[in-house]
């Protein structure tokens, strides 16, 4: 729990530092003020860096305080649910175009539903997967004229 409490401000500090360092690598402009594109990102990076350091100190002061939400994150299958959803999302990204909308969506939604809703409810999972994949395809492709692979 403490790692997450400290991790968030550290992550913000890293983001701000990366933006600050990268800001100095922005090429000078040929039009108008050569430094014009730099001012805003540099100012914002410094602003965010200072605030993130304050945030870090605030978190250090309250490190012992309990945060129920962080605790719940590590309880039960919450982390697994999030990780599996992300993994399935990545697979979906790779199969979406080669397999086409209907097949890839049935695979993605089906796997996600079976994992989240459980194998015991296989009938509901299959009906929902097939019907919603088809309804979504019909709605977007046929009614709204959105081109889908």
């Amino acid at each position, binding site marked *: 729990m403490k790692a997450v409490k400290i991790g968030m401000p550290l992550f913000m500090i890293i983001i701000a530092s990366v933006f600050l360092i990268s800001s100095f690598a*922005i090429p000078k402009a040929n039009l*108008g003020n050569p430094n014009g594109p730099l001012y805003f990102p540099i100012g914002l990076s410094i602003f965010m860096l200072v*605030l993130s350091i*304050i945030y870090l100190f605030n978190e250090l002061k309250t490190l012992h305080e309990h945060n129920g939400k962080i605790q719940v994150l590590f309880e039960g299958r919450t982390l697994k649910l999030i990780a599996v959803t*992300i993994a399935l*999302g990545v697979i979906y990204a790779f199969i979406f175009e080669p397999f086409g909308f209907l097949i890839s*969506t049935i695979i993605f939604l089906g796997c996600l539903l079976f994992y*989240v809703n459980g194998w015991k409810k296989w009938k509901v999972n299959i009906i929902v997967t097939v019907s919603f994949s088809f309804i979504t395809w019909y709605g977007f492709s046929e009614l709204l004229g959105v*081109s889908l692979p």
Partner: protein
Amino acid sequence: MDAFLQGFQIVLQPMNIFWVVIGGFLGTIVGMLPGLGPATAVAVLIPITFGMDPTSAIILMAAIYYGAMYGGSRSSILLNTPGDGSAIAATFDGYPMAQKGQAGEAMAISAVASFIGGVLAVFGFIFLAKPLANFALKFGPSEYFLLMLLTLSAIVSLSIGKMVKGFIAMALGLLISTIGIDPQTGVHRFTMDIPHLSEGIEFLIVIIGVYAVGEVFYNFLTIDKVKKEKKKVGRIWFTKEQWKRSKWPILRSAPLGFIVGVLPGAGGSIASMMSYSSEKQLSKKPEEFGEGAVEGLAAPESSNNAASVGAMIPLLTMGIPGSGTTAVMLGALIMLGVRPGPLLFENDPGMVWALINSMFIGNIALVIINILLVGLLVKILDTPAKVLYPLIIMLAFIGTYTLSYSTVDYFLLLLFGVIGLFMKIMDFPIAPLVLAIIVGGDMEQNFRMALTSSNGSLSIFFSSGISITLIVLTVLSLFYPIVINKFKKKSRNDDKEAISA
């Protein structure tokens, strides 16, 4: 007057009436699902607007918005779980009413209060929108920059107790908005030589990621613990006595909510809490508040719907979204090629007045939907979260694909979903991030244009009465939480002294 009638003609086209009803219905459904508010409703349903003409699209989005405001209170009343912040006040007395077996009466009075609040606010919109648009025509780049700064600082300052986090979220959003080709000079910024990033990060992907995927991830925290309560709805109309107690609170709360909605940063949550506390103070029976007092439900419901209409004024007249939901709508409008601002009233009065008039029809449709279809809506609430959340994730992916026809954006969607999850866990306000991403580009360009026109002198930001007023308001908005905290501490100390005396 011509534009008003032209707007009516447009909205009375059967297809537009259809979109108003569909938008209101879908918004109600998404808004009533626990954990999903109007911003998520609009974000998830944005893809429906693709391929539509902009007028129908804006009518549909507005209907989704106030539909979700209606829907938010359904789950507050039945499950004690508000759809979003503005529906929290509905749990105070709505849920106790449901526990007493008055769920149907509570839902009827909340629907009617929302209807009256929404309709009264539309009248306010009619009278205020055009003068405000004319006033906004006086704004130059420096005034626009300061107005955006005020909006952002007001949004951050409302996150009392977590202002540092609010400012970090804002700074992160502004930094994300700088990614891509600088429109003034053509210089690539933070693109890491990835061609996909040269156009910048599409803000709708961030919005769908944070609001839809992030919300679902966050709801995964409790997905195995949620136990659905089955409620008996009872009779779906209120008694004469309940109406007598509610009518004045409804009428008082509508203008209050409307004004709060117009203010940058403030929104439905503030409006509903303000009207709840003011009605409690005005009540002859304040002890009944929290125990199922019907006026404690009616007042905030009227107020938050009026606020949702009020929030459309700065959005349409100045292109300034005052809340997370209107920020999402602005993003969608820009994508549809509509640039909200004072000139929208000059260039496309038909669209603006069609939208305004659609709100009348939308509110009528919603009150009918929310009363006649209450049985169906309650059944939808019984949909298991374990089925619902995978569907929302799937819709988020499809929505993202239809934005750019590229699956590369799926990775960004997941990344912002995770960012949204951790922001929620660590109590970061999300609205400043979203708002900053949307207004960030314009804010920087206006800032630089103002400086260019003054040869780099910062005095341009103090050169007009409007600018100075905006600066004063920005400073006041930053000090507001400090004053509120001090005031709270002082009143606590006074209480202690009074007790010890």
